[in-house]
């Protein structure tokens, strides 16, 4: 080593310690600065963690003498729905004077009523009429079609019924949603169409009975899917789990399955009258699993063993798939 090379000039202990100290101070300073700049509670507005709501139960008290399931056969919506409700003890059993009732139809598509892909306007008219007759002060109609709510309500004929019956038609708006918390099989935290539930103290599900491409059938349990917001199609991967979760999420006052005209194939959208079969039946009840069990076996005329989501719900104690074991009544109008 040449002594003339500056890079090889000796460093004494003092200088070495000074350099070491400076380096250490620099590292420590950087660390302190980073810590000061770091925002452990950093959040983007709108994305902060929120505590989700939990829906209350709207279910009536369990009766040991009154039926929990009613099956009515007829050719006209109103007469048949009246008959079914009569078997259950009348709408007065569920709706009292001054109640604000939310009716949840299935308005998922902008299809005309004849194609049976959506809740039929005659069914809505009849149920709303019964609610008012029982003393309801207001009837809200709400659903969250993914696509163009106004178009779906209009083409399904429900807008006209709402206008005719002075119903409070509630479209999903940007501020209509709130996070929902649920200890479901797949449904844990999700955005939920909450506004109607702030006003209503009774909830009625009014669903058509129809074939479904992914989960075999869309009836009263699947109907609550329409209350979810966001990109809910991701649940299609776990369709039976999510549908069974709805029996946990929602404890309605009553559910009514419209099986007057059943979409037997190419569901859930249909598109041809040949997909629709008149079954002339209304099923009403307090246990949506029992109602759907009847609908699947007797209206869609399929083997109940294949409808996984009903079995999942039953296994979790959320309903009774064996509808014949429940207190039920049947009538032909």
């Amino acid at each position, binding site marked *: 080593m040449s002594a003339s090379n500056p890079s090889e000039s000796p460093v*004494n202990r003092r200088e070495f310690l000074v350099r070491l100290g400076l380096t250490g101070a620099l590292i420590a300073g950087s660390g302190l600065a980073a810590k000061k700049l770091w925002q452990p509670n950093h959040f983007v507005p*709108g994305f902060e963690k929120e505590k989700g709501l939990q829906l209350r139960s709207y279910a009536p008290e369990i009766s040991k003498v009154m039926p929990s399931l009613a099956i009515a056969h007829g050719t006209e919506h109103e007469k048949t729905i009246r008959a079914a409700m009569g078997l259950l003890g009348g709408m007065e059993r569920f709706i009292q004077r001054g109640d604000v009732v939310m009716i949840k139809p299935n308005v998922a598509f902008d299809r005309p009523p004849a*194609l049976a892909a959506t809740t039929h306007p005659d069914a809505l008219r009849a149920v709303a009429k019964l609610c008012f007759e029982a003393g309801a002060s207001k009837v809200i109609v709400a659903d969250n079609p993914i*696509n163009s709510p106004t178009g779906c309500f209009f083409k399904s004929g429900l807008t006209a019924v709402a206008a005719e019956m002075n119903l409070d038609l509630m479209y999903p708006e940007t501020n*209509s*949603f709130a996070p929902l918390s649920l200890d479901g099989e797949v449904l844990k935290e999700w955005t939920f169409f909450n506004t109607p539930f702030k006003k209503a103290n009774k909830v009625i599900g009014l669903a058509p009975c129809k074939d479904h491409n*992914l989960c075999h059938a869309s009836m009263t349990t699947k109907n609550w899917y329409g209350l979810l917001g*966001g990109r809910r199609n991701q649940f299609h991967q776990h369709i039976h789990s999510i549908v069974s979760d709805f029996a946990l999420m929602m404890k309605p006052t009553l559910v009514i399955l419209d099986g007057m005209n059943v979409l037997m194939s190419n*569901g859930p959208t249909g598109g041809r009258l040949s997909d629709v079969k008149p079954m002339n039946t209304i099923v009403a009840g307090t246990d949506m699993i029992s109602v759907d069990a009847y609908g699947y076996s007797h209206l869609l005329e399929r083997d109940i063993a294949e409808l996984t989501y009903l079995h999942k719900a039953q296994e979790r104690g959320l309903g009774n798939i064996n509808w014949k074991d429940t207190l039920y009544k049947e009538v032909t109008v």
Partner: protein
Amino acid sequence: MLLRLKMADQKNYGGGGRKQFVRTKVPAAESVSAAVILVLLVVIGFAVWHKGKVFDPNLYAVRTDALKSTVLAVEGKNGTAPTAAETTPAAAEAPKAVTEKTTGADEPAPEGGAEGSATPNPAEKGVPLEISLTGTKPMGDTEFYTADSLYEKIDGRAPAYQSFNVVALRCRSFAVNAAPGSYVDVYEYRFDNPVDAFGMFALERDPKGKPLEIVADGYAADMGYFFRQGAVYVQIIASDTKPETLAKAKSIADIRAKDLPADDTGLAGRRKLPADGMIADSVAYVPENAQGQSALKEVFQAKYKFNGAEIPFFVMVASADEAAKAWQLFQDFCSKFGTTENLPDVNGGKIFRAQVFGKWKVVYQREGELGGVFDATDEAKARAFIEKYLRGEIK
């Protein structure tokens, strides 16, 4: 650069009389490592310089459409795809159709959006569906959906279309002036090819549909018209069965069938299915593994009423070599699970019959055409059907 440290043996440097350390040798590995680091620094520096030189100012630009999607999702609504008029200036400025013709019918479909594309194209890209038909009026703007956003329109039905490689949907509603409150919905599902369009069309076929004369694959249903033209599966759905509504639906069907380009690529097998005795709703397309045979691909099949029996018939078109090979493989397969017998040739077609699991198959091969009757209970009728078909007596 290597850091070399040398602590000199000099008392005036504060050595304190301790033993001095002098580094006299640098290991070769250290020199090599230093050289590699130097080279890497140069490479990184060059890469940074180059990246800066070709920097795309749009790389980190705000994509408002993406933000819109996010906002809608957070708010719980995916919403309707913006219309072309809202998002495509050229489309918004395009003049409306002035005759009883559609505009843009021959235009390419909305681009991309197929599943798996790295950057799905926004749903709003597309040519508006303009139908100027006396007595009708558009009820709103054209809606556009890609394969990825199709669920927004048809929700749980979307996977069925995706399984046939749907590329896009555009749809629009038209009010019928003569019937207040009535309307006609027009859905045009564009697939990646005519065969897939046919597959979806066949899956949803109305068993009571009456064949349309305007297209090869189409039917009139009680409340609408459904047909495949090229790679497009068209659904024209009336809101009701009023004569005025159905008449307009028919007119729209005629216009769309005329304006959409015909393309039967891949459907040669379909053309081979004879029309005589065909049960209308029985036509099906099997893309692969037909009859459980890997060699039977792109097969078309249908059921026929023949001499009081229902005859299931299939046909495939391929090269002559492929057809011959598939015919032999099929016969070999049948002989493993049943009995087979070669029958006399008919009009250039070689035939074998087989009985497998109690059912009869009569299979022919003529040049690039392979077909036959399968799952027949009556061997004589199955054979007679094939022989008549090969002689051109069933057309």
